[in-house]
């Protein structure tokens, strides 16, 4: 769907009208996020509400990822804070956490009774398999955001591939990957930024 309105200029993006709209938007998307919210954040904020472009989403998420703390919690605070300052950040944060937390506690109380049944275990397994697919698909969708990067398609592809192999196959700790490949990627971006800057001058 994102392909049907590619590269919108920033002024055609929508924006939340109030803090309560932020709160309910994040509550609603958090409640749809089984096995992680990131896939839903991308779908709701970029594809449905169009508060940000795919490229902006990837940039914000990169920052949310590198900062300590839960990624989607960081992301919700960053987005909320951009529109309404600290109150906006807290509205988004409350939306992201309150309803899901109440729900997960109820689930824990209920699950304590049925934990040993085959049905509950099987359903958990099935949902886990689907959740893995949701996350991979979000990654595939965002690959499109890389093609317009000033770093060049090939460099982006090589960096992405190296990261995947390091984390998924070699099981290198994330901090090491972010420091090593991240530093390499940022220095390359720094170089490309210089070239791009000269071209436009």
């Amino acid at each position, binding site marked *: 769907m994102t392909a049907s309105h590619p590269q919108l200029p920033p002024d055609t993006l929508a924006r939340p009208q109030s803090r309560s709209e932020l709160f309910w938007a994040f509550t609603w998307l958090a409640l749809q996020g089984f096995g992680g919210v990131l896939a839903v954040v991308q779908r709701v904020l970029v594809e449905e509400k169009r508060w940000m472009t795919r490229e902006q989403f990837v940039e914000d998420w990169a920052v949310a990822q590198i900062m300590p703390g839960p990624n989607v919690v960081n992301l919700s605070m960053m987005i909320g804070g951009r529109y309404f300052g600290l109150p906006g*950040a807290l509205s988004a944060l409350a939306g992201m956490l309150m309803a899901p937390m109440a729900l997960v506690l109820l689930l824990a109380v209920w699950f304590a009774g049925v934990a040993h049944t085959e049905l509950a275990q099987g359903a958990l397994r099935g949902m886990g398999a689907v959740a893995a697919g949701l*996350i991979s698909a979000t990654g595939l969708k965002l690959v499109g955001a890389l093609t317009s990067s000033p770093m060049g398609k090939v460099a982006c592809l090589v960096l992405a591939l190296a990261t995947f192999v390091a984390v998924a196959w070699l099981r290198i700790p994330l901090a090491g990957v972010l420091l090593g490949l*991240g530093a390499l990627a940022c220095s390359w971006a720094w170089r490309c*930024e210089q070239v791009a800057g000269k071209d436009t001058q």
Partner: protein
Amino acid sequence: MSANIVFSLSDWWSLFTHFMLLSLLAVGGAITTAPDMHRYLVTQQHWLSDSEFTTSIALAQAAPGPNVLFVALMGWQVGLNAAPSVGASEWSWLCGLTGVFLAMSGILLPSSVLTYTATRWAHKNRSNRAVKAFKMGMAPIVVALLMATGWLLAAAHDQPSRDWPLWLTTVVATIVVWKTRIHMLWLLGFGALLGGLGWI
């Protein structure tokens, strides 16, 4: 049920401060600190049993909401275990909710304050070349991390002869979400149904 434990005020405080420390170490998400939580809560303090620990993570994965909610469930379980055993279920609830509150505010406060301050600064200086280079450079890395996460979740089931239906489910879900706009809840419900019926 693990054996009941007696909690003093300083134990509650230790729970809170340990999660505050982990908050600052949780680069790449709260789940990356799970191994250390296990060391602290299960091995060192004996506040949780092994199965209580893994159930907390599995339940939070299956429920909607951010994955960090597994921390809330651990706080809840620690609180329940710390409650006086003699009947009174009001005490269990109160202790459980205290555990939730301390664990969640511990894991969220330091990182959120830091992230909020740092990102406000970065947004103000968004035309700064270093800020731009950082955001541009990290984009391919984080996109690849998503795919790696999907891969790792699927690869947790590692016996091809038994687990191939699970892998197939993951692949089909990937393609459906990538190429169509079917609502994710339908897919998750379908996965739960297949699993519940014992077909995958």
